[in-house]
């Protein structure tokens, strides 16, 4: 096996020499001479993710819904972020909660959840923690509530806690913290002493300076960033002359926000890299090409949300194409693709 692998490596090197870097890599891949599949695992805030794909909070229920679909595998997923959880149960918003928009959708679910204790006692024990990691998504209306949710999840099998300071769909808390860098940092400061698990702060694109918010939450103790949450929007029923969404406004997601998400990621990357803080990049990813764009721009992990509504089997397809891309570009592991954006002076 070693000999075969060694020969293949030599051939690949030879092809690269004769054909140039890119062409050689492609020829090698076509001839199946690449000895190893690229390594798709990635380090993230002290965790090792088996793949860079993270299923995003609010799109995948409390962890197991997508396994209903034949062909979906948790083992393709680096981490699944559970639905946003508050200290007490929340009923959520009245319907309609979702609406299709050009190249995207609006949602205003309103953080429907059974409360942190119920999640920890009745849901987490039944999740297949041997197949993938599960992360909590913590929400609150007050700093004390955020801190208490963090404390409860600290003693649970989740391996990280995402802080949702950017949910646009509840009347109190949520995005009101996220829109103010100082308040955002206070949320992180309140949670930091309550848990040793990595804290990932989910940033809102709806504030003026996302890089400043990033700096404040990093300095307050955030181990990672999640960029971006949805943009606030609305839609009107022209017959009833009422807002379509029961909550009036909703969060806009899907391909429509992808350019915004990439730009916000780019803006955040500099400050995050300075502190060696990883970013979970997300916003409108519906195929491998989108995912690769995020990786190049600086996404250590890649979030899939609305794209799963297009295709619940998207993760496997993204991984296959991502591996092909890495092979064709002679990149041995995903980590070496992260943040390779070249900007000419």
């Amino acid at each position, binding site marked *: 096996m070693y000999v075969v692998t060694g020969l293949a490596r030599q051939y690949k090197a030879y092809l690269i020499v004769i054909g140039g870097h890119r062409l050689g890599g492609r020829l090698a891949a076509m001839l199946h001479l690449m000895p190893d599949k690229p390594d798709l695992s990635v380090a993230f805030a002290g965790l090792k993710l088996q793949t860079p794909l993270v299923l995003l909070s609010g*799109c995948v229920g409390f962890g197991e819904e997508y396994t209903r679909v034949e062909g979906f595998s948790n083992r393709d997923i680096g981490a699944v972020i559970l639905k946003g959880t508050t200290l007490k149960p929340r009923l959520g918003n009245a319907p309609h909660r979702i609406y299709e928009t050009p190249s995207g959708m609006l949602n205003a679910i309103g953080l*429907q959840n059974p409360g942190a204790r119920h999640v920890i006692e009745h849901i987490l024990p039944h999740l297949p923690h041997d197949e993938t990691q599960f992360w909590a998504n913590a929400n609150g209306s007050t700093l004390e509530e955020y801190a208490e949710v963090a404390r409860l999840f600290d003693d649970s099998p989740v391996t990280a806690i995402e802080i949702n300071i950017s949910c646009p769909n509840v009347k109190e808390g949520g995005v009101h913290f996220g829109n103010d860098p100082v308040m955002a940092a206070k949320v992180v400061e309140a949670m930091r002493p309550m848990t040793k698990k990595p804290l990932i702060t989910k940033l809102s694109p709806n504030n003026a300076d996302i890089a400043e918010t990033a700096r404040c939450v990093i300095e307050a103790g955030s181990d990672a960033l999640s960029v971006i949450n949805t943009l606030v929007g609305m839609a009107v029923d022209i017959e009833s002359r009422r807002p379509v969404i029961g909550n009036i406004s909703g969060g806009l997601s899907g391909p429509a926000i992808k350019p915004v998400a990439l730009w916000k990621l780019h803006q955040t990357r500099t400050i995050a890299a300075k502190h060696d803080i990883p970013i979970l990049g997300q916003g409108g990813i519906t195929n491998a090409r989108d995912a690769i764009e995020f990786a190049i721009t600086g996404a250590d992990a890649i979030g899939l949300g609305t794209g799963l*509504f297009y295709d619940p089997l998207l993760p496997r397809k993204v991984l296959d194409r991502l591996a092909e891309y890495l092979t064709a570009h002679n990149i041995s592991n995903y980590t070496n693709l992260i943040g390779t954006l070249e900007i000419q002076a």
Partner: protein
Amino acid sequence: MHESFRNMIFEEQAEVIANIHYPGDQFILRLKAPKTAQHAKPGQFIHIRVSPDRSLRRPISIMLTHPGKGTVDLLVKVVGDGTRELRDRAVGEILPLLGPIGRPFDLSDTARRYVMIGGGVGIPPMIFAADALNGQADTAVFAGSEVEFPFALKPSQFLLPGIGGNTILGIASLEERGIPSRLASNAELYGCYEGYVPDLARDYLMALGEAERSRCILLACGPHPMLHAVARLGRELNLSTQLSLEEYMACGIGGCAGCVVKTLEEDGEHYRRVCVDGPVFSADILPGFA
């Protein structure tokens, strides 16, 4: 723990086998989707991508399956841009679908009489349910439409109590299988009851003897005013009532909680997901339907 729950929904690249248009912007699609055809139960739906450009799939009730041929029949009415695009899909085109999805009707008590009430594009699940019962339980189907029915119709060979002499037409495919049916419309359609379909069902139920009536279970699918009327009817007559609901839907597999309906259960109010907690709910727990 979750093995029984896994792999119950299939992603299929469904070929359009037929697309037949009917008056009132209705059309019947026949799709090749063998796994859905094999596993679907009455009340379940498919979640279909009508075009690559649309971000959300469309949930559509299953009207009939042909497991041997691997096909699924759907009745659709154009109500917006998505269903309009679906209407324009040609034979041979491929549409990705997820199916079968959702909690089906409970048809398990064959000692009961199933009274099925469908309105418009809510008729298909009734046809599927009647077909699936296959004479194992007493069944009567009542269908309402404000546009021409997209089915072959024929005078019913079965007498039903409480039904007026002019209400003679039934759905041919059901009649041929020995399942009695009658139609209602406000569009002055020949051979149909003039009025709303819950009122036609009510006439039938009231004409049954009390013992026979108490044996009935109501199943309904259709527009909200019709479901309200059926829920009221069920409560008035103290009959078990199952309603199939629809709501704007995103994932269709329980992930997003976008497609909810408010329920009132023993432990209080909840929003339940129409996609996987429904689409069929007992009217007893739906405070919004009365």
